[in-house]
């Protein structure tokens, strides 16, 4: 029992590793912020294009969404970081991660937005257009608010996925939370920093997961 505690829950080692891990956590949060904000915006644009009547815009977006939902994000990341240099394009780890995960994540957000927009009855759009609102005004004031409300749990779930996804960035030596914890482990010859990292992920994600399942139960009741 003591041995178990000393290996996984050594408080002294955890305290020692904490500054390094917090620095890593800050990088993780920055990464999440950029990927989520760009992903939300890009996803919304893609969804609007995918739903537009114009042929080539529509097909371009539909193909993008399918493609980047199907390619494993780790494959994408390693390709962007280690593959693109062969074409003369060398990216810093942070940029490579942002680009790879943006591609993956905007496709997921687009799919969520598309489902939300499709679920708004067509009569809403017609009523709005019949009062002289333009297509853009109709989208902004009439369609998007209920569409986003409908898919809020899915948007939040996707956000949780992004936070988890960023731990993959450790493979390109970006010193985010997991990478920092693994560094601390190798320096201290002790697994406690990894446990600490898991606890930090948990501290951020658990409340989110709770909110989502509560929201989904709320929707189910209604």
């Amino acid at each position, binding site marked *: 029992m003591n041995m178990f505690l000393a290996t996984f829950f050594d408080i002294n080692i955890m305290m020692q590793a904490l500054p390094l891990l917090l620095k890593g956590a800050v990088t993780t949060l920055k990464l999440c912020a950029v990927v989520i904000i760009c992903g939300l915006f890009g996803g919304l644009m893609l969804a609007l294009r995918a739903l537009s009547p114009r042929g080539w815009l529509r097909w371009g977006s539909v193909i993008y969404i399918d493609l980047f939902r199907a390619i494993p994000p780790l494959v994408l990341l390693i390709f962007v970081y280690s593959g693109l240099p062969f074409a003369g394009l060398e990216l810093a780890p942070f940029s490579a991660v942002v680009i790879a995960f943006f591609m993956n994540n905007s496709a997921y957000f687009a799919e969520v937005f598309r489902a939300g927009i499709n679920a708004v*009855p067509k*009569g*809403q759009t*017609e*009523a*709005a*257009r*019949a*009062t*002289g*609102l*333009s297509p853009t*005004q109709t989208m902004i*004031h*009439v369609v998007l*608010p*209920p569409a986003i*409300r409908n898919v809020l749990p899915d948007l939040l779930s996707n956000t949780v996925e992004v936070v988890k996804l960023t731990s993959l960035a450790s493979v390109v030596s970006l010193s985010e939370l997991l990478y920092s914890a693994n560094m601390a482990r190798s320096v201290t010859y002790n697994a406690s920093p990894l446990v600490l990292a898991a606890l930090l992920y948990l501290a951020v994600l658990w409340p989110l997961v709770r909110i989502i399942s509560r929201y989904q139960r709320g929707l189910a009741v209604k």
Partner: protein
Amino acid sequence: MSQHRAMLEIHALEKRFGQTEVLKNIDLKVREGELVFVIGPSGSGKSTMLRCCNRLEEPTSGAIMIDGARITDIPRRDLDKMRLKVGMVFQGFHLYPHMTVLKNVMLAQVKALGRSKAEAEARALDMLDQVGLKHKADARPSELSGGQQQRVAIARAVALDPKVMLFDEPTSALDPELVGSVLNVMKDLRQKGMTMLVVSHEMAFAREAADRVVFMDGGYVVEQGPPEEVFGNPKSERLKAFLSRVSGTAAA
């Protein structure tokens, strides 16, 4: 009312969906301040005709004039301005569920007509008062009965000062006890001089309030005239058959 000019004119209107020809050759005139009532079997093209009048559907050929201006050949970018002149009320109300009743009536006033918020709010409250729902201004549509929702939808359309109001079966989705309140609002509107084209099955309302009844079948206007004429002395076999089929509901 025959001295009044035509507010809505439909000439040789034709509409096809792919191979199906839904409107074959429609001619119809609604004069200023007139209430024209449209009846006809389901699938005869009544909704499609109304929807051509604000170009929610694109006519295949023919011409439609609103207040003397031809709306069938204006470019797409001018559609929104044209639609301000044509109010439309749908069977399913289609209020915006995420906004209060007041905001529902204000939205297009501000965004499409360019009224100030204060002006739009004053007008919205006035319109809600006219349909007897001022006390519901801060409610959400989901808190209203169907009849109340439909009255808000009418207020939303009329607040834009349209030249013509189109009604597509405005009471068909309502419980019978709620129909009267909506019809009263429509009678009120007619009294105030609104030009109205109404598709409905409320024959009693047509007898009472319509200047003219138009019978559509198979994509044509088959017969039209004053209500007592059309209901009391139908000429075509198709109208006779239609009336005898719906007489059960007409008596109700």
